Each structure stands twice: as C-alpha cells, then as structure tokens.
C-alpha cells in the first residue's frame, strides 16, 4: 500500500512539474465519463450519434437523451464537484483529513432543513436550497464549536464522534418529517442514501448554481485556505484571522452541501475520498487542489451514477449505496492510519 502510494506520488510529482498536465488529464477523464454516461443505459446511443440525439428533436432517442439523461449527468457533474470541494473546504476548516460534509452531519442538517421547506412550502422549490443552507450553517456552527471550544487540541477521533452524534440527531429529524408528511416528502430511504433518479433541468439549475457560486467563493479564498494548513499560531503570525477563515471555509462548504442535498439527498463519502486521493497526486495547496478535486468529484459521481443505472438493469441501484461501498472501507483505512 505504502509502496504503491509512493510510486503514485513519484509519478505525480513528474506530472506536477509540468503545469497544466494534471488539469488536462482530469478534464479529459471527466469528458469521457460524461459521454459514456449519456450514451449508456436502458436506451443506448452510440457516442458518435450523441450530438444529433441532443440537438435534433426528430431523432428517435431525443426525448430520452435530452430530457432524462443529459440533465441527470449534468446534475451529477455539479453535485460531484460540489461535494468534493465541500470536503476539501471542511478538511481545511477543521484541519482534519477525516472531515466530510456527510460524516460531520452537515448534509444531514441541510437535508432536514430542506425537507421542512419542501413540506411547508411545496409551491416554492427554489426555497429548498436556501433553507438547506441555513440548516447546513447550524451544523457547521455546532461542528466548529465542538472542535474548537476547548483550548486543548482536538484529536481527529473526537471530531468524528461529534459528527456521528450530529448525524443521528438530524437523521431522526429527517425520519420524523418524512413519516409525518409521507404524501409530500420524498421517501426516507431514497433521500437518506442519496440518488439522482428523476433529475430534471430545474434540479440542474439548482445544483449548478450553488456549485458555481461555491467553487468561485472557494477559489477567492485559496490563500486563506493555504494558510490554514499551518498551525494556528503560525497562521495568525502572518496575519491570518484564523477563526474568520475557518468559519468562511466551512460556510462555503455548507452552501455546496446544501445545493447537493436539495437535488440528490444525502450522498456521503465523495467529499472524503476525492480530496484525499487528489492530494496524493497534486499536493495540499488549494490553488491546484480545489479545481482538481472538483473535476475528480464530478467524474466519480458521473461514473458511479451510470454504473448504478446499468449494473442491475432494469433495476436501478441507489448511487449513494454504491458510494458507501467505495467510501466506507477507505474511511476505515484513513481512520486507522491517522488515529493509530
């Protein structure tokens, strides 16, 4: 394992020496994943025919491709990128590689708040991500409070345990809302596991807008994020308002998680797996890490969702379950490596 990681690090250092090589590679992978995901499914269209199927309304598969598959793949791009960037931001905010919007309860809180909005104001779907953002901010405040309330340094384990506690609290809230308003709210199981089934162009607008805003804000903060990689005393010593930087990073993470949860429910582990994997290849500084994590997160979710659609066709697996199969062992490995 360690030898393999060293080999990857060595190769990636060569790639890093040529600026633009890694982004080009990651971008090409995302494009290939998107084409594959749009083409594959119950109705499959050869990749060469895709442009015509999208643009030409008389193409026999136009309706399926343009109204069902294209929005779904684009939503996966936006949500995958958003979750990966949210994970990167939260990891910087709490200076802990185990942080993830799902594991810290931020998506669960955003989800619970979003559900309340769905149930109380069914006529205003645009309100959902806004209320979800408010819920995510509550979780961020609680997490930062737990992590930095004491003056003693907080071990990674304590943060994870706090996340577990928060998560179960908000899961309970979600269960209550979905049970009481079964007629109006999405089904509990699908929402909690996370799925992209039935994604519309309206969903793409919500996920795309929040992802774009969040990523832009994160890129504006890269210097703050990089200084958060130093210990508190050193970061403050060069003039970083440490607490404000932390709150900013985590709040942008909450915004990104809120946009995702409004469309796809509680997808976990993307924010954990992607930034940690990309860091091995690209290093910890955020000017390169953020865009690459966005590209890699998008690729991962697009591929996972395509796999979820075709693996057991005509049944559709929930993509969140697939991600958990991938992410949970990785999380355990990280936990063992960082805490031991």
């Amino acid at each position, binding site marked *: 394992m360690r030898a393999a990681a060293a080999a990857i690090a060595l190769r990636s250092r060569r790639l890093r020496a040529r600026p633009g090589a890694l982004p080009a590679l990651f971008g090409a992978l995302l494009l290939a994943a998107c084409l594959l995901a749009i083409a594959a499914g119950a109705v499959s269209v050869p990749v060469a025919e895709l442009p015509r199927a999208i643009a030409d309304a008389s193409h026999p598969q136009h309706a399926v491709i343009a109204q069902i598959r294209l929005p779904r793949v684009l939503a996966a791009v936006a949500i995958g990128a958003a979750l990966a960037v949210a994970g990167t931001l939260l990891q910087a905010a709490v200076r802990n590689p185990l942080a993830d919007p799902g594991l810290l309860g931020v998506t669960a809180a955003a989800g619970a708040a979003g559900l309340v909005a769905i149930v109380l104001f069914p006529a205003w779907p645009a309100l959902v991500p806004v209320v979800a953002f408010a819920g995510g901010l509550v979780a961020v405040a609680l997490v930062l409070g737990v992590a930095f309330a004491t003056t003693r340094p907080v071990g990674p384990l304590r943060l994870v345990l706090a996340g577990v506690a928060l998560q179960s609290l908000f899961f309970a809230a979600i269960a209550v809302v979905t049970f009481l308003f079964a007629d109006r709210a999405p089904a509990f199981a699908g929402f909690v596991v996370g799925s992209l089934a039935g994604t519309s162009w309206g969903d793409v607008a919500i996920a795309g807008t929040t992802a774009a805003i969040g990523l832009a804000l994160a890129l504006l903060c890269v*210097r703050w994020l990089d200084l958060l990689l*130093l*210990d508190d*005393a*050193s970061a403050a*010593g*060069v003039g*970083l308002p440490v607490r404000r930087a932390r709150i900013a990073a985590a709040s942008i993470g909450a915004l990104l998680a809120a946009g995702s949860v409004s469309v796809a429910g509680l997808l976990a582990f993307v924010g954990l797996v992607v930034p940690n994997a990309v*860091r091995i290849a690209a290093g910890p500084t955020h000017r390169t890490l953020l865009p690459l994590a966005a590209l890699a997160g998008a690729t991962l979710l697009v591929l996972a969702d395509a796999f979820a659609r075709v693996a057991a066709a005509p049944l559709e697996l929930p993509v969140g379950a697939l991600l958990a199969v991938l992410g949970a062992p990785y999380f355990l490995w990280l936990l063992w490596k960082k805490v031991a």
Partner: protein
Amino acid sequence: MTVPMLHAQRVHLRPPGSERDVVRDVSLAVHAGEIVALVGPNGSGKSTLLAALGRALRPRLGRIEATGTDVWRHAPRTFARQVARMPQDPSCVEGISVEQLVASGRHPHRRALTPPSAADRAAVREAIAALELGDLRGRTLETLSGGERRRAWLALALAQETPVLLLDEPTAALDVRHQWDVLARLARINQDRRVAIVVSLHDLEQAASLAHRVAILHRGRLYAAGAPERVIDEAMLCDVFGVDARVAKEDGRMRVQVLRPADPVRAL
C-alpha cells in the same frame, strides 16, 4: 529616547485554560536592532510573554505597544508586517514544500487576488538564501531533519521582513552543532538587517554570547534585565534556578559552571 519597537507595560498574562496569571506585572521594552534574550526556569512565563508580545494572547492587565500603538489596535496583517513570531513547535500538514512555506510569510505584504510581486519573490529568495535552504526548496517539510525544518520556519519569519522577530526556544531539541548554527544565523540576521530579536533560550552561556540584554523571568515576574555580565551572576543562579554555580569570564566569553543543586533551605 526613541519609541521602543515593542513595549510591554506592566502586563499580567493568563493563558487560556489557566486558573492564575502566569506572568505578573512585567514591563519590557525592545528597541530597534537589539537582541533581548528571555531566560528563566521551566514554567517561568517565557513562552507566555512571547505569545503576548506576538499578539497571540491578550494581556489580562496592562498593555503592549508596537511603535507607540497598542498591538490590539493594529489589523492582523499590519501587525504581521511589524512583528514576526516563530512559535516553539510550529507544524503544518504533510506535502508543503520549503518554498511554499517560506512564501506564506509574504501574506501580510501581498494584495488580495494578485500573484506575488517582484518584491515578494525577492524576499522569499533572500530568506531561503540567508538560511541556506536553496538545495531544499522543493523538498516537503516532513522529509527534512529537525535542524533543516527549524531553518525553514525561521526563513518564513524572515520573509515577513519585519523589524522585530520573536523566537520561542529556536534551539530546543537540536543537537549542539545545530544549536550553534541557529544562534550564529540569528546574530548575522541581526547585524545584516538591523532586526530586533527577542528570543527565549535555556542555555545561559548562549544567551550571554548572543544577546545585548538578558531578561530573567522568575515565577512570572521580571527578576532582572540588563547586560548579560550584569544580570547573570551566582546569586541570581541560586535564587532563580536553584543551583550553586560558578560564573567566570574566559577569553571574553561568559562561562557558567553548575556545581550542584542549591541548599533547599536557601533556595526557599
């Protein structure tokens, strides 16, 4: 009399989590271009005083001024252009290169959303050269030895180009050769750049050879401050450190020879 670069005025300091004041009623002025060594036994308040001088801890009573203005009235970045501080045990996540670390010292000088200026790049280059880190600039911190890492953090503080440098035990956990190396570099920095340095040290001989003035802390109070030969003597060693010792001058250098722990009754 010129305005001191940094001036602690009757400060009482209580670190977070502490029940009582760790530093009590200490006044200390640091003037442009001088080296002040802080010495004292473990727990005498050296690190706490340095933290407060570096604006990392608000005095419970009293105030600290930088060139005549309360340090807490400066914006963080403004203050970071006047005073740089190296904490006792600085750390960063894995994967940061020496050059990236040193470049973060330019944060207080850089404008938002612009790439580093020519002055920024020159300051980083000079700081790396001053600590002979040229061959290591691309290496990541966790791959360096303890001495090299200390030099990298020192280079960060240097890249801030401040008139005052605060260093908390820069020689701790280094072998003798690397201790000597760090001290020689501090003397050079002080001479070449006219930077005032406040440094906490455990070794009294090192403090005497490096510093223009030595400030001795004892149980949170300032026991004495002045030229090394005036304040380091046998009575002080008995009172403050609780040892019977000989202090002698050899070839212009101060020698402190500890003989035995002082008589416990006298030490009280």
